[in-house]
């Protein structure tokens, strides 16, 4: 009977790649048994809280901590003066700038950290914050980056030279004291030339508003300095724990082996937890000063007001084409509002991230991109919110420009896209702004999407709706949002991409236990992506042991191999590749063991699902389980005992996932309320590891896209006050606001990735935002609309209708 186990049974038993294995993480999360930073409770632990600036721009005349220190339970109140002797009153940012840890002489944004109160109890700390007396002298506030570039007010006096002029920054010369950098890609002269002689040119200005990743768990850390053995342990909400260890070592002078960084369960990151925040530094310093563990966990308002924002790009575009719709050139200029400190989380050489992917999915021969970064009195950041570095901005830009060009050409925007796609046989494709796309089959995906939604039928229905609207039969318009996006993820080749000098490889280390189970540790860290589920599946397929017998561990720098962390959809493209490569090393050794056990030559055995079989004699085999046991317990000539492997993977190129999205929306012209009737998302992320996890990723990314497109923003008034500091005003959609998503796929593997996977977590956000926005804009297109800015909340949609005279 036992011989009746079929090959299919053995494949199913592994729960390897391609299987919708249930998430192993969910048992603890759904039972409230997760272990987050705020769950870390240590004996004698103190609690920190910040005094924050109520002003967006002010000089600090004095800080009086006496009353706070007098409150029973208060241990310390740190100010910049206390951090200065340690050289920690400022810290380097990931973007080559520096940022105040605690306000040094002035404050530059509302909510900025001014003093750090440490107390025995979280409540006492909050009470003491109110007792710290800070005297401010208000200064002129600059919230508009264009005005900032004209202003006589220098926000960052520390960046000026002796003559009061703007000293060169990390990315070259600066043209004004409030200017941070100018970054360019492509050929401007050639682009201008094409534009000047083009048959058709469409232009548009668009503002991609400031928003925030808003993970459900806010940022926090617990630092514990053991003065006896000199070791610092730091728990924190870190998307890149190993980088945090290195940076902490470089800043503090504590040797790296004496620092242990632990990123426990993380409740969402979306880019918000890539950077280093003053709270982390202050908790470390406070622990060193007091000799006790110190916890800092921010609240929701602090998270929204002071930790890394996303977007805030003012984009000016020009696109040229022939009369029949062949695109000939693209010109893009961005004025990038970076806030008070340039704390963008981008690879060092890319101060505007991968914005130069803005030629999108189209074969555009000539292009130019220029980005000017600007200081303003807003919170620092500029992180990639559920996207690779600035890719959401790039895709929004090109997908809006395509729509604008289609209007100018009076051409169907689906047809215009088809006409300009990079063709299947053009891959690997060299884009005008420098990237080499690895693989794609855009037309196939596009045709599949348009057919799935009956695109022609939708357009006919929309035309009828316009007629009915004009005839007074309805007050609802119908919009069809289209998007075809190409992402650039998986940073990245070390030759191109580093963060603070650290090359962006990643790693996996595997130990197979004698009984045929395993533990694998990676340099990444899940924040909800389900790594413990999916990386075990990669390994299951690669080494032939059941995924259920493989434990995945991440986030503890004392045990995990060095890696650059999880963001920019890099875990599967980079650490996933390392996992496959390490698995193959295991398999290579297993092959030798199997051959020895079967008494044949190494070349005479081959891998088959969960075993090595003698070629041509499938009844003669050794299972991986048997091989693992032998690896430890049998003396095999010429082989070391044990079955372990480690791989550090430096990818040869990025990966380029793509997708085709269609949104059908009905808009109430009178109330401005949009209703999403249908959302179809086709994603091609190459090889699919776990279809259920992919669907979950797509639902999540689309929901964050819906949020950003339809209302989620960090808004400031002209005095730099944050108007959207709570979840009442900062739009976080609930199940009620979210439509039913239809997902679909094609599979175009990455040719350079060991398993052909491209990454998927961010695609739906990147493609979703322009798709929702295009649907809104498309509804008003028959009445003369070419572009309106996001977020498309009720009043702004109403305003568009009003401006078009639809309420008259």
């Amino acid at each position, binding site marked *: 009977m036992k011989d009746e186990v079929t090959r299919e049974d053995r494949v199913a038993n592994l729960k390897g790649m391609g299987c919708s294995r249930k998430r192993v993480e969910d048992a603890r999360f759904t039972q409230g048994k997760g272990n987050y930073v705020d769950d870390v409770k240590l004996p004698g632990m103190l609690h920190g*809280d910040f005094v924050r600036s109520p002003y967006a721009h002010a000089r600090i005349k004095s800080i009086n901590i006496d009353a706070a220190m007098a409150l029973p339970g208060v241990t310390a109140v740190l100010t910049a003066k206390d951090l200065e002797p340690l050289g920690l009153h400022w810290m380097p940012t990931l973007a080559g700038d520096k940022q105040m840890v605690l306000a040094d002489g002035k404050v530059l944004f509302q909510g900025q950290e001014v003093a750090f109160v440490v107390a025995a109890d*979280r*409540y006492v*700390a*909050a*009470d003491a914050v*109110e007792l710290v007396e800070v005297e401010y002298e208000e200064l002129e506030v600059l919230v508009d980056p264009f005005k900032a570039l004209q202003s006589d007010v220098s926000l960052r006096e520390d960046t000026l030279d002796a003559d009061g002029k703007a000293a060169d920054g990390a990315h070259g010369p600066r043209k004004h004291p409030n200017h941070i950098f100018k970054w360019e890609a492509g050929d401007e002269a050639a682009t201008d030339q094409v534009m000047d002689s083009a048959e058709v040119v469409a232009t548009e200005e668009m503002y991609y508003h400031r928003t925030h990743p808003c993970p459900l768990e806010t940022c926090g850390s617990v630092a514990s300095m053991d003065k006896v053995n000199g070791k610092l342990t730091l728990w924190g909400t870190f998307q890149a724990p190993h980088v945090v260890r290195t940076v902490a070592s470089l800043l503090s002078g504590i040797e790296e082996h004496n620092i242990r960084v632990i990123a426990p369960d993380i409740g969402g990151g979306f880019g918000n937890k890539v950077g280093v925040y003053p709270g982390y530094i202050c908790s470390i310093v406070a622990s060193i000063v007091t000799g006790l563990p110190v916890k800092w966990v921010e*609240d*929701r*308002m602090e998270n929204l007001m002071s930790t890394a924002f996303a977007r805030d790009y003012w984009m000016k575009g020009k696109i040229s084409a022939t009369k029949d719709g062949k695109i000939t050139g693209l010109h893009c200029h961005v004025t990038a509002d970076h806030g008070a400190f340039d704390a963008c989380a981008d690879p060092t050489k890319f101060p505007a991230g991968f914005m130069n992917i803005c030629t999108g999915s189209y074969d555009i021969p000539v292009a130019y991109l220029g980005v000017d970064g600007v200081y303003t009195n807003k919170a620092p950041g500029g992180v990639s919110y559920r996207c690779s570095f600035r890719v959401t901005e790039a895709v929004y830009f090109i997908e809006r420009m395509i729509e604008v060009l289609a209007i100018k050409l009076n051409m169907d925007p689906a047809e215009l896209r088809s006409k300009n796609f990079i063709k299947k046989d053009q891959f690997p494709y060299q884009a005008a702004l420098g990237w080499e796309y690895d693989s794609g089959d855009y037309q196939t995906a596009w045709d599949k999407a348009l057919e799935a939604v009956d695109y022609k039928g939708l357009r006919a229905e929309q035309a009828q709706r316009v007629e009915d609207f004009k005839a007074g039969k309805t007050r609802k318009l119908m919009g069809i949002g289209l998007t075809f996006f190409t992402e650039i993820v998986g940073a990245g080749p070390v030759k191109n991409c580093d963060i603070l000098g650290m090359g962006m490889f990643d790693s996996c280390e595997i130990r197979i236990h004698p009984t045929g189970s395993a533990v694998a540790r990676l340099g990444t860290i899940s924040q909800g992506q389900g790594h413990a589920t999916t990386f075990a599946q990669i390994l299951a397929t690669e080494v032939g042991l059941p995924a259920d017998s493989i434990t995945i561990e991440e986030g503890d720098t004392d045990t995990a191999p060095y890696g650059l962390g999880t963001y920019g959809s890099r875990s599967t493209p980079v650490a996933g590749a390392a996992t496959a490569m390490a698995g193959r090393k295991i398999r290579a050794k297993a092959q030798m063991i199997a051959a020895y056990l079967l008494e044949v030559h190494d070349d005479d055995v081959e891998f088959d699902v969960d075993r090595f079989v003698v070629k041509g004699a499938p009844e003669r085999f050794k299972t991986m389980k048997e091989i693992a046991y032998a690896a430890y317990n049998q003396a095999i000539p010429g082989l070391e005992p044990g079955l372990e492997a480690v791989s550090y993977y430096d990818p040869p190129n990025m990966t380029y996932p793509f997708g085709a999205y269609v949104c059908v929306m009905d808009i109430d012209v*009178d*109330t*401005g*309320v949009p209703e999403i009737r249908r959302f179809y998302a086709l994603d091609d992320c190459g090889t699919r590891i776990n279809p259920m996890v992919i669907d979950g990723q797509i639902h999540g990314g689309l929901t964050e896209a819906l949020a950003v497109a339809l*209302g989620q923003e960090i*808004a400031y008034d002209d005095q730099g006050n944050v*108007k*959207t500091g709570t979840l*009442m*005003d900062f*739009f976080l*959609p*609930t199940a*009620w*606001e979210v439509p039913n998503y239809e997902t679909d796929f094609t599979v175009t593997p990455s040719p350079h990735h060991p398993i052909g996977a491209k990454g998927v977590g961010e695609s739906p956000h990147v493609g979703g935002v322009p798709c929702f926005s295009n649907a809104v804009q498309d509804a008003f297109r028959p009445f003369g609309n070419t572009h309106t800015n996001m977020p498309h*909340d*009720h*009043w702004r949609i*109403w*305003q568009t209708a*009003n401006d078009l005279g639809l*309420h008259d």
Partner: protein
Amino acid sequence: MIPAEFEYYRPASMEDVIALLEEHGDDARVMAGGHSLIPMMKLRMADIPHLIDLQGIDGLANITVENGKVTLGAMVTQHNIIGSDALTSAVPILREAALQIADPQVRYMGTIGGNVANGDPGNDMPGLMQCLNAEFHLIGPDGERTVEARDFYEAAYMTDREDEEVLTGISFDAPSGGYAYEKQKRKIGDYATAAAAVQMTKVDGVVATASIAMTNLSDVPVWSEATADALIGTDCNEGAVKAAIQAMLGDIDPTEDNRGPVAFKRHAAGIVLGRAIARAWSRT
């Protein structure tokens, strides 16, 4: 989100509540569900040194519908309202409105007494209570008294209730005829961009009586007699509804916030009212 220190009381009798209020004056507040007050305290926008929880008082959570008279204890939750067959049958507008307040988790805790007593212009029940011409029952050191909902609200968070008084219940006559509670909001859990409560009766094909109140369009709920008058005697034709909207626009006074500018809110108020009238009329 850490409140300042406060004393917490959970008295077992209303006499004890009144005694605490008399002792601490405006340093004390009573709490029903706490879903407005506690966030305010956590944000340190409300400093309440003495917090008196009403959960320990018996008899404040009754719902009675007798002889056309509806009485609701102050501690009746939105969830209780939604689940009460007697209320749904006698005052269907109450359930329709309660379902549009916050989300299920909040509705399990949030009470009608807290909703009407807090004086928050964003709350839905004050306008609805004005529409229903409800009476609020208060108790204080000098005994009990009754105030009409239409006279209760003075300004945002300012009401006719004295510091030493507790709102114990609400009563009103069960309405007849058609009804509608129409609310535009940005998302679940949000206050209204604009909301309208409409009750009306029909006799001989025209509106016989009407009562209309608007929410979150001024610093107090707006019960607009002129709006109702514009409908009475009409069959709610387009001209009548337009006149009603015009009358309503004369009584509201919205301010700009993240929900939008004044022009949008006024427009939305008109649309919401028009839809509420249409639905109420269709139900007469």
